[in-house]
């Protein structure tokens, strides 16, 4: 532990902490657009700058570790002025169509501009102009809204380890895209959507049919049903209907999802989806109740076991079941049915 003075208050914080982490733990809010706890500090957006006594420049709190005796000011006039200038610079190169932006209410830039009172565009000049890339079936990329925080690139490279996107060109022309600016559906992208989840603005957005306002949606925490990993996620619900999914910080997924969990929820409301068991009667499937279905299954199992013995059965389990469910499944076959013929689709 080291002693630091933050905004005049003596604090005792762990010595391997960055200033940002120490402040977050102490409830001091420092704005940041490019920081993500899961990856190394990028120190690029520069919004998390703080003033440290004895230093001429304003270092970023995300990348500066606390030191014993350090005197830190997180919201001094100098810091606030620089943050305001930085926000002004971002806004000057950002389409100010918040009224119609799909990410309104969920946008970090909007939030900080409100907090720092950015009411008009101070620097008028060239703005970037890119074609929106709609080529991916699940999300679109609007580089006009991108603020080059680089989170998407780093998540894609360092956590998803796909490396589909990177920084193209440099300086003022820097933008995010696949190599040689090819369209995203031609790239290595696996559509995991983790870039979309971390985008602080509206540059990477899911293709949602409904017009939604993120601050009006209900969040429902659940476990992804697609496989046994147990990823935690938040279903975003509008009028009882799931309209989007956000990854949540579960022990097994740490805010990541795959393409199925992230985007594969539309089957829920599909008219072809089976919601009740079907039983074949007179050569045709008809809807039935679960009670009746289980009774038929149990009856037939008993009959087959009596006539042909336990090894007439084979159980084949699904990767969509959890570990616990798979355990129960093999228990059912070994203990109740008496056979070791149990297998799982993931082993194929």
């Amino acid at each position, binding site marked *: 532990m080291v002693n630091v003075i933050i905004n005049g208050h003596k604090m005792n914080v762990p010595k391997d902490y960055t200033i940002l982490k120490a402040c977050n733990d102490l409830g001091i809010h420092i704005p940041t657009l490019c920081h993500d706890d899961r990856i190394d500090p990028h*120190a690029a957006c520069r919004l998390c700058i703080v003033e440290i006594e004895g230093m001429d420049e304003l270092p970023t709190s995300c990348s500066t570790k606390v030191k014993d005796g350090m005197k830190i000011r997180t919201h001094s006039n100098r810091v606030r002025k620089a943050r305001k200038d930085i926000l002004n610079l971002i806004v000057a190169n950002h389409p100010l169509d918040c009224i119609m932006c799909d990410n309104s209410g969920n946008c970090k830039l909007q939030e900080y501009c409100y907090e720092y009172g950015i009411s008009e565009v101070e620097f008028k000049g060239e703005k970037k102009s890119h074609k929106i890339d709609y080529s991916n079936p699940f999300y679109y990329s609007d580089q006009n809204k991108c603020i080059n925080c680089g989170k998407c690139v780093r998540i894609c490279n360092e956590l998803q380890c796909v490396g589909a996107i990177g920084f193209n060109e440099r300086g003022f022309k*820097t933008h995010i895209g696949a190599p040689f600016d090819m369209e995203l559906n031609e790239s290595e992208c696996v559509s995991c959507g983790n870039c979309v989840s971390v985008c602080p603005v509206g540059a990477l957005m899911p293709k949602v049919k409904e017009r939604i306002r993120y601050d009006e949606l209900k969040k429902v925490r659940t476990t992804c049903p697609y496989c046994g990993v147990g990823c935690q996620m938040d279903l975003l619900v509008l009028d009882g209907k799931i309209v989007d999914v956000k990854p949540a910080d579960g022990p097994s997924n740490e805010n990541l999802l795959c393409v199925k969990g992230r985007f594969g929820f539309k089957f829920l409301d599909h008219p072809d989806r089976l919601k009740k068991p079907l039983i074949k009667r007179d050569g045709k499937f008809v809807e039935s109740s679960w009670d009746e279905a289980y009774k038929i299954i149990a009856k037939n199992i008993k009959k087959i076991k009596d006539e042909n013995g336990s090894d007439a059965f084979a159980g084949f389990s699904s990767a969509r079941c959890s570990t616990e469910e798979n355990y129960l499944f093999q228990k059912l076959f070994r203990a109740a049915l008496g056979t070791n013929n149990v297998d799982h689709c993931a082993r194929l």
Partner: protein
Amino acid sequence: MDIYRSHVIICGGTGCTSSNSDKIEEKMINNIKDKNLDKEVKVVRTGCFGLCEAGPIVVVYPEGAFYSHVKLKDVDEIVNEHLLKGRIVERLLYKEAFSEGKLKSVNEIDFYKKQRRIVLDNCGVINPEDIDEYIAYDGYMALGKVLTEMRPLDVINEIKKSGLRGRGGGGFLTGRKWELTYNANSDIKYVICNADEGDPGAFMDRSILEGDPHAVIEAMAIAAYAVGANNGYVYIRAEYPIAVRRLQIAIDQAKEKGLLGENIFETGFNFHLEIRLGAGAFVCGEETALISSIEGKRGMPNNKPPYPSDKGLWNKSSLINNVETFANIPKIILKGSDWFREIGTEKSPGTKVFALGGKIKNTGLVEIPMGTTLREVIYDIGGGIPNNKEFKAVQTGGPSGGCLTADLIETPIDFESLSTFGSMMGSGGMIIMDEDNCMVDIARFFIDFTVDESCGKCTPCREGTKRMLEILEKITKGKGELEDIDNLESLANTIKQASLCGLGQTAPNPVLSTLKYFREEYEAHVIDRTCPTGTCKDLLSFYITDECKGCTKCSKACPVDAIEGKVKQKHIIDRDKCIKCGECISQCPFDAIIKK
């Protein structure tokens, strides 16, 4: 060894090579052969002489005849007259090298008199493509001494005692950097030479590598021994083809002689050196960006700490020094730190190489002891301002530096005094400006460079430099408002304080220093809508004065037919048509056209 009666030294630096010194060499060798002199006269192609303004340079020894501006057609005369008949070709001699019928030695020429050549010692003397010539000038003696007589800590202490500071611009104590790398806990360590020289107009690192590549190789081996590394890289930009080629030749020759590779001097010390080519991004001169680039990643800087001495190349402790810094090392080891400290000032010992450019007579490369004043460099060495113009300011440190004005001309050049006045040493570009230079336009020029070279990682540099450029363009176009000057200053300060790397942190310096010393020029552009020096075209108008004799030359020259007038009558410029190209001014024999 063959003995020759005469040596012809031809400059093989990039400057002279681009004015055909390679063809001059070829022709010289052929002519000498034709005259059957090839057993008597030897032609040597060396590195840069420094006096690029007088290139291509050919010096004939033993007389020491310093021929300048030599053309291909002059070769016959030099061979026939000088080499064959022993008659010096006076017409080709550099004018200062010849007075009262006598030849002056190179060191008596004003340009060289006040210089003190340590790192450029071998440039213009030895053939950089022949390791034996380097060895003949005590080459690799320092490495031998270090490996056989000194422990790594002795080497580090010697460098620390010398007080040598990084010549790449920052001025960090070299010995301290070596010590930090030595102390770093890392299983593998690397030594890297930063040869990614990118300042506009600066070419000292290129010239060192072109003229004396072995000095850098030797120094890197010494550094590797001192810090405990066995591998090194020279990161050099691909736009320096001659330097790259000579460095590769030097590395190959050193390997062949056992001065690189395994078991050097049979001491068990191994050092492997490789070249890595950069693609010419200015930001790759920043050490963390350079490391990323060697690793094959996009050349973008990373936050420091961790410093490269802790986590550098491939996350291993790495020592990065600049070319010129390295070139000092063998001399310090051989002659001792006390000798080195005697040169220069107490806090900035040694010499510094500067690339003199802009409005100065002797453009070229100069090496001066630290503490030499700007006046000595500009007037004594540089020969002053051409065309009797008045000296206005000097920009040091390239786009990262600032300008120093005429009243600071007695400032001694060292790390501290330059930064006290808002400039910096930088890598050593020195651009001289005279009364015709518009300081707003100079600031615009440098910011334009930074906008192009910003890597785009951090917001203040990526977005901020662009906005500074837009404001400066607005002012130079005569559309600026007073508040633009304040906004520019405020934005410059934020960029300086909040940017990620040295590029962004120093990018506003040209703006801030011109605002500090020449604010009235900015105000003239904004309030009076004039450019006091007549540089900013949009703020100029061309006028014909009563001096006009009606010769019609101007109206014939005007590409847009904007000048009207009858023969022998005063002409008039139609300012709506005029595109301010200046062609009329250059044609007028009576100086009757002015711009204001």
